[in-house]
């Protein structure tokens, strides 16, 4: 089997952008491994528009956005293998994979880029009571059935969870003639973008019931009805508030989980908050030469940010290979901590020597904050205090750190990102 400098696990938006960036940074020995039969990942089934406003300054559909990157991969002659499942990544960066043409094979890579994306939270992880009949789908599965295969999962639909995929599918199924009866959301706020609530639900008169959850699923062979109930502040159903909807389909849009089985078995250190790897300024994990980007690192709401992040991972992988051994360099890291409403940051540490002039640090908040401040502290000194009209868990936030600013603070040990009321 041919050897490669850089193996990229996953040919979705993150893997494609990482590959293009690595090639453009001067490396000609790149291989993308993709388990599906085509490149593009989840974008292929996201046929709605709204992608690429940041990257291309125009509104594209998912397949169009993916094609912009697929075309670059093809034009640059970057190698890829489809229908190929990566079985293992060893701590020494040996990648074991298999497909029907090559059988099982190993590639001793110099750098590995993790770009496996994420999976939907399934029913089994939600503790919904009731029967287990046919007709219960994750929203993404339904999206694939409708948009790729051309099948309608059902005609009368209840949706649990107001994540963006659920909202998009509420509109999609309505357009194809289904009746979407209600979208129930456990939390007192929606997990989806405001634009999707208005254009996918309000436009079609679909009610959104916040602080509601499914308490019963009826139907032995196939779903016949779903009962939802209001929940209290403890998120427990309140007796007497039940509403029963007859339906043949229940869609679940209850969160996404980074798909990190391979990372874990490789010994990559994980963040309990993001369920993704802990990375430094180079988007490098605790294993030198193993980088992560896209939804495997932390779940994004905009693909534009995935592309930007993956570009950095690709460039840094090339830098890592070109610089060879790093033992001699400064191993001091500045920690980035998230507290007081900020749930996590990516990256979570900075090596000042390797940091670029500007570094984007992305984070999410744990609640809805109105007229609050994003504050950044260098040790005990507050150096940034930005007022934001609104921050919500469904919208990723970012701050930009300047290398010059960090250098001015000699002996800087810790950067803290927090949300302050004033």
């Amino acid at each position, binding site marked *: 089997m041919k050897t490669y400098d850089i193996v990229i696990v996953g040919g979705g938006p993150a893997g494609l952008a990482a590959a293009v960036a690595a090639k453009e940074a001067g490396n000609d020995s790149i291989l993308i491994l993709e388990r599906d039969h085509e490149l593009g990942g989840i974008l292929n089934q996201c046929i709605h528009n709204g992608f690429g406003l940041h990257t291309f300054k125009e509104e594209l559909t998912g397949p169009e956005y993916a094609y912009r990157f697929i075309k670059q991969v093809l034009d640059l002659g970057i190698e890829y293998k489809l229908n190929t499942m990566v079985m293992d990544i060893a701590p020494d960066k040996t990648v074991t994979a298999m497909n029907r043409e090559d059988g099982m094979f190993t590639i001793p890579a110099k750098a590995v880029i993790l770009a496996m994306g994420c999976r939907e939270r399934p029913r089994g992880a939600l503790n919904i009571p009731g029967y287990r009949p046919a007709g219960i789908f994750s929203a993404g599965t339904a999206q694939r059935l409708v*948009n*790729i*295969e051309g099948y309608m999962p059902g005609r009368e639909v209840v949706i649990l969870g107001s994540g963006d995929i659920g909202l998009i599918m509420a509109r999609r199924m309505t*357009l*194809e003639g289904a009746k979407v009866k209600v979208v129930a959301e456990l939390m007192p706020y929606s997990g989806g973008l*405001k634009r999707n609530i208005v254009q996918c639900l309000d*436009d079609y008169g679909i009610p959104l019931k916040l602080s509601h959850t499914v308490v019963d699923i009826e139907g032995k062979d196939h779903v016949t009805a779903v009962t939802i109930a209001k929940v209290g502040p403890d998120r427990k159903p309140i007796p007497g508030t039940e509403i029963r909807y007859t339906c043949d389909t229940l869609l679940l849009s209850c969160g996404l989980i980074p798909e990190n089985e391979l990372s874990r078995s490789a010994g990559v250190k994980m963040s309990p908050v993001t369920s993704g790897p802990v990375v430094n300024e180079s988007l490098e994990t605790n294993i030198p030469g193993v980088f992560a980007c896209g939804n495997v690192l932390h779940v994004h709401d905009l693909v534009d940010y995935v592309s930007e992040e993956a570009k950095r991972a690709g460039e840094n992988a090339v830098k890592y290979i070109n610089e060879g051994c790093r033992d001699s360099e400064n191993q001091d890291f500045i920690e980035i901590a998230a507290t007081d409403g900020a749930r996590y940051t990516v990256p979570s540490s900075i090596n000042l020597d390797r940091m670029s002039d500007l570094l984007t640090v992305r984070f999410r908040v744990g609640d809805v904050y109105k007229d609050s401040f994003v504050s950044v502290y260098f040790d005990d000194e507050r150096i940034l205090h930005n007022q934001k009209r609104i*921050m919500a868990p469904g*919208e990723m936030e970012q701050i930009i750190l300047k290398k010059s600013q960090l250098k001015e603070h000699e002996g800087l040990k810790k950067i803290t990102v927090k949300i302050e009321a004033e």
Partner: protein
Amino acid sequence: MEKRELTCIGCPMGCQLTVTMENGEVTGVTGNTCMKGDIYARKEVVNPTRIVTSTVKITDGDKERVSVKTASDIPKDKIFDVMKDIDAATAKAPVYIGDVLIENVAGTGVSVIATREIAKV
């Protein structure tokens, strides 16, 4: 005087907008916290439009469906007429991004174009 209630989509704030109208003309927008809301509300009450995306059945292709969109936004009240035309259409592979699959969909003067490539088998 007529009043319309809207939710602004300009940002996550989701301001509740109240638009006052007289004889089909906007006389005022309240509830917005920035200009985005004002602009959105004025367009949304007088001439609401949307891009429609869907799929069209394809023959001789390496896939079952080709994803499509209206080349520009169409009046909101024509969405289901547009969908009817899209569901009735079929395309023949090969198809390239930007290919016109339906002309003047539902009499809107807008075409429906392919958003992905389908190879011929």
